[in-house]
């Protein structure tokens, strides 16, 4: 009757209180549901919005999804400043606090293992973009393709194709080297699918989309390392985002056994 429980993350108990004005999904402040050695961070959300059917419908609504995604990320971000959260995927919802507790209990070991692994680490995102095709074809005296002879036209096309291929080659070499370099520096790394430039609203073609797990203390050095590459390569743009909670590194272990059919009571895994 006080709504459903939207779970953002699982953490170890932390001393520092969250910012008082922090709000989560739907404007409800994040609350803590402690259980044994773990704490779930939850918000109360209205059943009208988060029951199965309405949630499914809402998720197709980009405005709604954007608001929830930003709220979710906002809470995770706030948690990252005071502890190391294990972020859950958007839309993890339980009926009540006791449902949340039995979920924690069922996955306690995985959570603890994951938290140990990520303790004190953050994620940095690095993307490389190939800036839009160069306008200047080597020789192109007049912008009047119709007046060009077939042979000139053909030659121009060949040159353009070649320069585009060169660019790709260069972008790939650059991205490969950058990734090797950063992966060597980081504790762990993940390559993500390149982002569709349309959703990101970024110009240029995304040729590298990677995440790096870096201890907080080494973040400054990591950032410098990325910054240093930025001027290296004309036509290529390096973009750094972070520090994020270790989203890209949180999934594997805890996702191991998915209790199909909502079997959330802990019965051991054997």
């Amino acid at each position: 009757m006080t709504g459903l429980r939207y779970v953002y993350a699982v953490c170890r108990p932390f001393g520092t209180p969250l910012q008082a004005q922090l709000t989560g999904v739907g404007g409800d402040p994040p609350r803590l549901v402690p259980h044994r050695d773990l704490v779930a961070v939850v918000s109360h959300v209205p059943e009208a919005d988060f029951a199965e059917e309405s949630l499914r419908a809402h998720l197709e609504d980009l405005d709604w999804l954007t608001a929830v995604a930003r709220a979710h990320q906002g809470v995770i971000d706030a948690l990252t400043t005071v502890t190391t959260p294990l972020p859950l995927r958007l839309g993890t919802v339980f009926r009540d606090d006791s449902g949340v507790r039995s979920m924690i209990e069922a996955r306690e070991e995985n959570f603890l293992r994951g938290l140990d692994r990520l303790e004190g680490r953050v994620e940095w995102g690095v993307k490389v973009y190939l800036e839009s095709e160069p306008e200047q074809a080597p020789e192109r005296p007049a912008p009047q393709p119709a007046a060009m002879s077939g042979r000139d036209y053909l030659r121009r096309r060949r040159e353009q194709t070649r320069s585009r291929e060169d660019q790709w080659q260069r972008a790939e070499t650059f991205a490969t080297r950058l990734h090797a370099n950063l992966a060597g520096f980081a504790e762990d790394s993940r390559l993500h699918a390149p982002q569709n430039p349309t959703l990101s609203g970024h110009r240029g073609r995304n040729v590298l989309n990677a995440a790096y797990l870096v201890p907080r203390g080494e973040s400054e050095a990591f950032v410098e390392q990325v910054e240093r590459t930025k001027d290296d390569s004309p036509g290529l743009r390096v973009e750094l985002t972070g520090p994020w909670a270790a989203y890209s590194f949180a999934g594997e272990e805890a996702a191991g056994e998915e209790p199909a059919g909502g079997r959330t009571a802990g019965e051991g895994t054997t």
Partner: protein
Amino acid sequence: MTTPSRLPDPYGQGSSANLADILERVLDKGVVIAGDIKINLLDIELLTIKLRLVVASVDKAKEMGIDWWESDPALSSRARRDELARENAELRERLARLEELEPRRAEEETP
């Protein structure tokens, strides 16, 4: 160009954070747990979202710099025009190749 600050400031985050970066993480990464409310996020791949977006509000999408469908012939008349332009270019290329052969043949013919 490197101005090392003691603690790295957040890069590309906050309210201006790239929506794609956020969605990529909160929808696609992170720990997956089946809650009491069963939702299969795979049903709402980002592509679906984008497609819906096109149907829902083209102007808004453009405002956000989203215009990928414009190059998709199935969705855009301009893309179909581009497709014609491409075909046209292909034909020109073939013509050019023929033209290249032509002088030689002409030489052979005239003694």
